């Protein structure tokens, strides 16, 4: 591995991370505007990433910009808005081939970087607001995506489960706030939120890949130079308190298979021990959940656990016949209590750590994942490399895994179950 990582504070709440490894054939740039969640601004922020990434004053027609990106060997520009922990992120990113693959000596990366800067700083405007035709197109797309949430049944079930689990917290809100909020957006109102974002957001720029970033980094440092003295600094961690009693919620929908979602929360458990515990519980095909709920009891095809460190929560997701949800729930709880009682072998623990090592080491093989890794570490206030994190996970003892499992408590049970099915015509 020849991975080189560097973070530079550009001043005024702007940071620049570069992660370089010559083995990569591509370069990625990610510009993140970071703020705290606000229900009022969420609809505009959700749409903003889409509006900014679709055109600019340099390429005032989305088809024209798409053609230009095609000619740069399929470079792409994309936008993404999300809420994670206490951070609301509006991200605009670019990806291009390294210049050495250009067939005619083109400066692929610098040209792509310039297009991205144009999208961020030179949006196409009409009458002091975002250009209306493209704005309306993106707004209709977001409304359609909101209406289609129900199409992916499992993801929809998880959204509803987390809504209950995080009730009363901003994390219970959708990243777009509300459909009504999106409907009410105008080119002017979103443009005003954009101007405010430039003034107040913390900004993290990430360059990752195989290329020489020197010129592009200069371009970005100059474009983002600011004399700001005050900016937001949202917190990555936003732990969710455990309910006094677990909440139970059911919803019916036309589905063949029920979804059982169980959300657990932790009382001040240590993060590395929880990570190992969660993987032992349900993150691998040799985990307790896979071997028992799926293989031994034959109850489901999927049954897995995920750890959300920002919320100190673990979600178990299981697809199961509606009449078997209670059996599955009881078995999931039993497997967790068995870990808390120390009912796992040293070999299972070592296998889990080996799987984690594989997961963390493979981060070095994808430029975008490396960039995301170092961005997240900075947000967490950590300087761990994937290798460094791996060492910490290997140091977790059996006793610490047991202690972590003891602190994991059931918070929410959500079931999405079926009604009568629709008929074919």
């Amino acid at each position, binding site marked *: 591995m020849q991975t080189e990582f560097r973070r530079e504070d550009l001043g005024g709440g702007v940071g620049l991370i570069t992660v370089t490894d010559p083995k990569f054939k591509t370069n990625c740039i990610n510009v993140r505007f970071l703020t705290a969640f606000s229900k009022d601004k969420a609809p505009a922020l959700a749409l903003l990433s889409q509006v900014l990434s679709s055109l600019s004053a340099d390429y005032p027609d989305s088809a024209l910009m798409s053609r230009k990106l*095609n*000619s740069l*060997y399929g470079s792409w520009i994309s936008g993404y808005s999300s809420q994670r922990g206490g951070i609301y992120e509006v991200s605009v990113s670019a990806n291009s081939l390294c210049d050495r693959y250009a067939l005619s000596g083109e400066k692929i990366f610098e040209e792509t970087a310039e297009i991205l800067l144009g999208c961020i700083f030179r949006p196409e405007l009409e009458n002091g607001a975002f250009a209306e035709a493209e704005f309306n197109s993106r707004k209709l797309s977001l409304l*359609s*995506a909101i209406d289609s949430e129900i199409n992916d049944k499992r993801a929809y079930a998880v959204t509803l489960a987390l809504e209950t689990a995080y009730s009363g917290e901003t994390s219970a809100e959708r990243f777009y706030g509300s459909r009504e909020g999106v409907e009410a957006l105008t080119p002017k109102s979103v443009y005003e939120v954009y101007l405010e974002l430039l003034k107040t957001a913390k900004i993290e720029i990430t360059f990752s890949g195989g290329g020489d970033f020197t010129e592009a980094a200069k371009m970005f440092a100059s474009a983002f130079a600011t004399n700001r003295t005050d900016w937001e600094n949202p917190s990555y961690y936003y732990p969710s308190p455990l309910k006094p009693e677990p909440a139970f919620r059911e919803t019916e929908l*036309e589905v063949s298979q029920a979804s059982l979602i169980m959300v657990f929360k932790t009382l001040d458990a240590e993060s590395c021990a929880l990570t190992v515990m969660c993987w032992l519980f349900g993150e691998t095909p*040799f985990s307790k959940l896979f071997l028992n709920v799926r293989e031994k009891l034959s109850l489901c*095809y999927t049954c897995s656990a995920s750890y959300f460190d920002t919320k100190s929560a673990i979600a178990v997701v299981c697809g199961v016949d509606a009449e078997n949800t209670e059996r599955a729930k009881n078995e999931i709880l039993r497997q967790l209590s068995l870990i808390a009682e120390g009912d796992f072998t040293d070999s299972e623990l070592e296998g889990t750590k080996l799987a984690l090592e594989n997961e963390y*080491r493979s981060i070095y093989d994808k430029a975008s994942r490396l960039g995301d890794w170092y961005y997240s570490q900075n947000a967490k206030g950590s300087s761990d490399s994937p290798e460094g994190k791996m060492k910490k996970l290997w140091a977790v003892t059996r006793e610490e895994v047991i202690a972590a499992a003891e602190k994991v408590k059931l918070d929410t049970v959500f079931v999405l179950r079926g009604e009568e099915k629709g008929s074919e015509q």
Partner: protein
Amino acid sequence: MKKELIENSRVGEKYYRIIHPTGLTVYVMELSGFSGTTAMFGTKYGSVNTSFRTDADEDIAVVPEGIAHFLEHKLFENDDSQVYDLFAKTGASANAYTSFDSTVYYFDCTSNFEESLEILLDFVQRPYFTKETVDKEQGIIAQEIKMCEDNPYRRVYFNLLRAIYHNHPVRTEIAGTVESIGKIDAELLYRCYNTFYNLNNMVLAVAGNCKVDEVIAVADRMLRPCKNIGLKTFFPDEPETVAADCITEKMSVGVPVFSIGYKCAPSSGRELLKREYASAILMSMLFGTSSEFYKRNSESGLINPSFETETDDGEGYFMNSASGESEDPKRVYELMNEEIARAKREGLSREEFEEQKKSRYGTLVRMFNNVSASASGLLSAHIAGCGAFDSIEVLANLEFDEVYGMIGELLDPERSSLSVIEPITE
């Protein structure tokens, strides 16, 4: 053993192709600087291979739908162990998938590569099926089938295949149905295993942090010689026409989901690659994000970013399609056909064609930027009867006039169908 080095100067990569004495074809791409390695062990046996005969058979055998996928599940259980437990000792992440025309077992690892490769080659060559283990798996697979039934994007796609094809088995779900898998027993599984899991019908593709000699050494230790059994697969006659113009189903969706397909003549080898690229470029020029069609109809809200085009092909089938979400799928279908007619009448831009070629070249270079995509590229090229770099050469030699001349055949409204999933209304 025959070992050859295949290089491509355009992308600056190379790989080894080895014909192992056991009959297995092995590909190895050493990617320097990468931490991980992916190994994929596959057989040319997918859901469409339900009719076959070997030299030992008098008649053509016809087996239940879903059996290739059932085998994929069952091979993860040996007589003395669960395969995932073995991989737990090496840290590799292992899995498998079944497609229309192949079944592939694979792992990704960043350490203990040789041990993991030994496990992969061993368990795929060591089937173990009993009535009890087959019965248990039927419950798990039934849940997988139900999960797929609830996925409107998958339903709309398979409904489209049923509308496009009269007889070809591509019109059937890869996992089969709850009813068809109920007919599968241990004896049938052994029959299909012994027919299709013959090393002469299989391929091993390895890419990443590995050395060719180390792969060959493991192959020498673990592979068991196979006699070529003269396997032949059969497909029913398929008319040129589509089976239905339109197919509609109701599900709980927020916005209608649609898929529009254009039936084309099947092909194979380099000709298949040429037709795949011609299809992709034509559909991008007509309906992609750089097209007037996309701009006009996304501005009006008729389509949204879920709109995308793709080509699906294999033995005996070839279909170009567009899918997405829209309040008015029939209008999307009409406008697509109008756009095809306009392109035939007025022509297409040579300049944009060259931009599309560059974009496709970029996609190919990106494939070798990724360990698992490289292994997958080696394997899928072999299944399609090509080499992994053939696509680069086919693309480089693609000419505008030739591609433009293929519109009529690759996007023929007379041989097209519309599939829609509509919301349930009270």
